[in-house]
């Protein structure tokens, strides 16, 4: 007797999100149920497909934004209010957006020789160029693939 099929316990099993009792039940069930073993493989494939998506980041994104902003939050005082008034959200957003608008031509040079990462980046840029050609209001955001999580 292997009991009811495992259903959503299988995804939680893959993610290490089961309690000890649940995990024991899953392992025992899988030993005797080919249907659940097949489903586990399918779920693992879908999970792996998403987890293997490349990690993307606009080039220099974090560095540029952090350069535009105060390094630490400031206490709420009259002086701080004055400082904040000089860095209103709209001004900050405009500055950050400007920092992200990069010359597409420089991207390949900056990342040349990075193999597969360059291909992903170039493809993204090609696609983005198409978008911009359709909608000139879009800003040109430089995309690179980075390694690791």
């Amino acid at each position: 007797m292997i009991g009811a099929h495992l259903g959503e316990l299988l995804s939680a099993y893959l993610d290490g999100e089961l309690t000890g009792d649940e995990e024991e039940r899953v392992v025992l069930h899988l030993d005797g149920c080919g249907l659940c073993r097949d489903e586990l493989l399918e779920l693992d494939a879908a999970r792996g497909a998403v987890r293997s998506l490349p990690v993307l980041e606009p080039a220099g994104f974090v560095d540029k934004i952090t350069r535009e902003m105060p390094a630490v939050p400031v206490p709420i005082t009259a002086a701080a209010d004055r400082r904040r008034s000089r860095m209103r959200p709209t001004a900050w957003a405009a500055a950050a957006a400007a920092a992200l608008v990069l010359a597409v031509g420089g991207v390949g040079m900056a990342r040349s020789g990075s193999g597969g990462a360059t291909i992903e980046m170039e493809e993204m840029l090609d696609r983005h160029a198409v978008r911009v050609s359709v909608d000139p209001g879009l800003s040109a955001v430089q995309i690179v693939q980075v390694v690791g999580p």
Partner: protein
Amino acid sequence: MSTDDAVPSWEEVARRHGRKIYNFAYRLSGNPDDAADLAQEVLLRVRRGLLTYTPGSFDGWLWRITRNAFLDMVRRRQRRPTAPLPDDDRAVSSASPSPDEVLATIRLSEDTQSALLKLPYDFREAVVLCDVVGLTYEEIAAAAEIPVGTVRSRIHRGRKMLKELLG
């Protein structure tokens, strides 16, 4: 994921989480412009929020802000998340000469991204927070303000739908 007593600086948050925030938005929307806009908006909200932040589950706080900012952006634009551009062989073949296996990898990524965008939002969000951002079920529950059991169910059903779409 940590529960820190110390309040991080805005700069630390940007460096530690900026890329994940960008990827969260990109995988949910399929649009690099939306992703960049979202990341900027989130970091702006974080900067403001840190002034009054009470130490606790920082990741829960951060991803709640991120999720709400994304939903606000979608509502503001009053349009559905943008599907990726249709397969464009010209775009791929115009890239510098590429090994077949690299192109195959890119195609797989496109297929997966396309399938993700076909999932109903709640399922897509749960899958992305789990498999792209790397949050635990408990952290996803805190971010989305739903029970952990619902998180488990959404991730499972989302993956089953993905499997069907990917064939």
